[in-house]
């Protein structure tokens, strides 16, 4: 038993310090958690993601209270009970649907920021890997949630995606049926994906978020120039009041104040989408109830899956699946494929900056082509974009190997 003050009033600062070390916690996690000063608004994406995840949890709780995971009731519980009977039920659903889509936009911006500023290597590998794990879990969360309204898009997305597990020529029909608990997506399938969506996956996400934050604490946040900062030295200057000379700021309240401003701007856009432009996140086709005997004329995944879907599509079945698998895991390996010793923004890294913008443009091209009908010129372009994507990785290995130390 450590020393503690017998006379401290219950729940006074001293009393809590003796028991929870709140001052130390506050210091370590916020007031003396030093963030470089030389940053831009892209450094706020993490907090925006946390806030959006919070919105998803809160709106999800209210949807959960009226949703019924049963193939006969699911569609009506969402579209009738929640959308027209529950007070503000429509608001929760619109927030949930739009947030589920927008969260991926922010994830992609967050990822590309990390790539641009080389924030994934030389001590920051685990930040990158835990972030990628979050991306994959979010994808599973988004997919399982997409099943729940049990509309035409839910049903057919479920059908097509679970069919991927057949493994092409491996013909793992048994595995597919095991995943579905049925020959086609049915009641057992809906209920288990409901469980995944509201319990297991959120639990994993929360654990991963904690891990993601933890992996950030020691290596610290990167900065706009990739400069290696002596945090102890800089912190000393800051605490002495030499704030202008110091290269760092405390997480709270200084860094946070900027985050919150960026968040405010983001929420203006977010709620504009919730109230006025929600179709992109809530596909009208999904307002037709699931019908296992009629496929909609056009089926396509949500926009954030399109780029990897388009890598699958142009190839024959087996190579397509392999390409798709590569696309799913290749980003995990980024810290190890990049052989350059430099932590610096892309524009200072020679060929890397070209590589970066080609990647951005190629992924956007894949995204758009993934939604277009696979006909004529779109088909050709899709194949080219997919091949470029696959070639990007050996090229990265070579150009970073050649990169000179700055």
């Amino acid at each position, binding site marked *: 038993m450590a020393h503690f003050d017998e006379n401290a009033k219950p729940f006074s600062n001293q009393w809590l310090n003796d028991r929870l070390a709140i001052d130390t916690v506050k210091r370590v996690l916020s007031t003396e958690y030093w963030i470089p000063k030389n940053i831009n608004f892209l450094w706020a994406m993490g907090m925006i993601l946390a806030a959006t995840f919070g919105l998803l949890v809160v709106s999800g709780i209210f949807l959960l209270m009226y949703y019924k995971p049963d193939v006969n009731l699911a569609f009506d519980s969402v579209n009738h009970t929640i959308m027209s009977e529950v007070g503000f039920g429509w608001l929760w659903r619109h927030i949930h649907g739009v947030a589920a889509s927008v969260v991926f936009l922010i994830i992609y911006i967050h990822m590309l920021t990390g790539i641009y500023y080389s924030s994934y290597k030389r001590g920051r590998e685990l930040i990158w890997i835990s972030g990628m794990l979050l991306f994959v879990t979010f994808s599973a969360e988004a997919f399982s949630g997409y099943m729940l309204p049990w509309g035409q898009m839910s049903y057919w997305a479920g059908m097509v995606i679970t069919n991927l597990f057949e493994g092409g020529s491996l013909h793992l029909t048994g595995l597919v049926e095991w995943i579905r608990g049925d020959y086609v997506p049915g009641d057992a399938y809906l209920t288990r994906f409901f469980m995944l969506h509201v319990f297991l996956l959120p639990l994993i996400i929360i654990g991963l978020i904690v891990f993601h934050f933890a992996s950030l604490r020691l290596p610290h946040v990167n900065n706009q120039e990739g400069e290696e900062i002596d945090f102890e030295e800089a912190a000393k200057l800051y605490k002495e009041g030499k704030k*202008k000379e110091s290269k760092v700021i405390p997480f709270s309240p200084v860094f946070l104040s900027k985050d919150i401003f960026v968040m*405010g701007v983001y929420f*203006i856009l977010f709620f504009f989408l919730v*109230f006025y432009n929600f179709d992109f996140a809530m596909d009208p086709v999904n307002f037709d109830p699931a019908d296992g005997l009629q496929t909609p004329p056009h089926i396509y995944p949500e926009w954030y899956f399109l780029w990897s879907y388009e890598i699958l599509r142009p190839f024959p079945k087996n190579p397509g699946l392999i390409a798709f698998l590569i696309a799913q895991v290749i980003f995990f390996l980024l810290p190890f494929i990049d052989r350059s010793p430099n932590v610096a923004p892309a524009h200072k890294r020679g060929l890397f900056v070209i590589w970066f913008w080609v990647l951005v443009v190629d992924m956007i091209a894949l995204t758009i082509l993934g939604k*277009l009908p696979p006909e004529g010129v779109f088909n050709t372009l899709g194949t080219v974009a997919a091949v470029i994507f696959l070639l990007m990785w050996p090229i990265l290995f070579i150009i970073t190997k050649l990169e000179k130390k700055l």
Partner: protein
Amino acid sequence: MREFKILAVVVFFTLVVYIGVEPFAHSQMHAHVEGHDFVYDGTADIEEANTRVENTKEALKKAQDELAKIQGIDDAPQEDIVKAQEAIKKQEGALVKAEETVKRKSLFWNNVASIAQLDANVSNGEASFGTCMACHNGAGINMGGVIPPSLDHVGSLYDRNYLIALLKDPAMASNVDHKYANTMMHPMGSVMAMVTSDQQIADIVEYMMQNKVGELEPKAAFEEACVRCHAVRYAKITQLGDTPEFKEEKDALAYKIKVLDEQALVKAYMGKLPPDLSMMIRARSPHYMETFVENPQTQLPGTSMPRVGLTKENYEKVKTYLEEVGDPSKPAREAIGPWVILFFVVFAVLAYLWKKSQWKDLH
């Protein structure tokens, strides 16, 4: 300045993605359909038939090219040549048919236009209208596939030209004549035997335009125009109309069986049970809905859904009702939206001022 440059880059790429996967992709997926502002003069039908002629001509040309190509090869197998010749023959037959359709449609709609010019006699029309009541009697009995709709407000619900066309030839007026090319008869086909002269048609329509009128609430307009085929389960509406309340489960089940029987008859006539319309207002875009109701063939070629001939005003009523059922939160959404956005604008301004005060001494 640098932050604005970065923001511009982020916004630019985000917009490219958005425009690519939303407006652009959708424009590529769905052919654009031009509306005709609920004017039923046959222009759309003749255009449609002409397009078919053009398409068939193209297909014929392709088949002919194919034959020429095969004949160009020295030792082309005889069976390929025969196949190509058969393909040409098939397209030639289709072309003749398509051209006939254009002629038939033009003739029909010209005829309708001339009937619209006739001087009508309302009292003669009233006398002839009696024949309509043989079927449109409100008894709720299915005749040839559907329960004949009420004619109480037929003069205000439907377009005058459409009604003339409907009495002249129901299948042509509804633009579903392709369905009745073989043996099947339009459920209202008997009208062609009962009302035979153009004058009689003009009289009846004039009678309806003057006497069978009335202002309808959105729900009533919807029920008269759509409910003989479509159910709306969120409003407890079936093909038999509003579902009554039953105290005993037995009575409720007996009623349900009556509904199922009626649905079976509608299904036998339409080929499949027409979809429930509860959520249709959100499942289709406003433009799709409008052009579909005006002329179903434009959006779903070959569909058995007939053109109903609603006037623009009454289409708006149907739309209003579908919105009440399928998107009842729209008024609340539109009322709350500006306030929430205003809240976050003020929030962002305050947050900016706070940030500025926090960062004041840093540079």
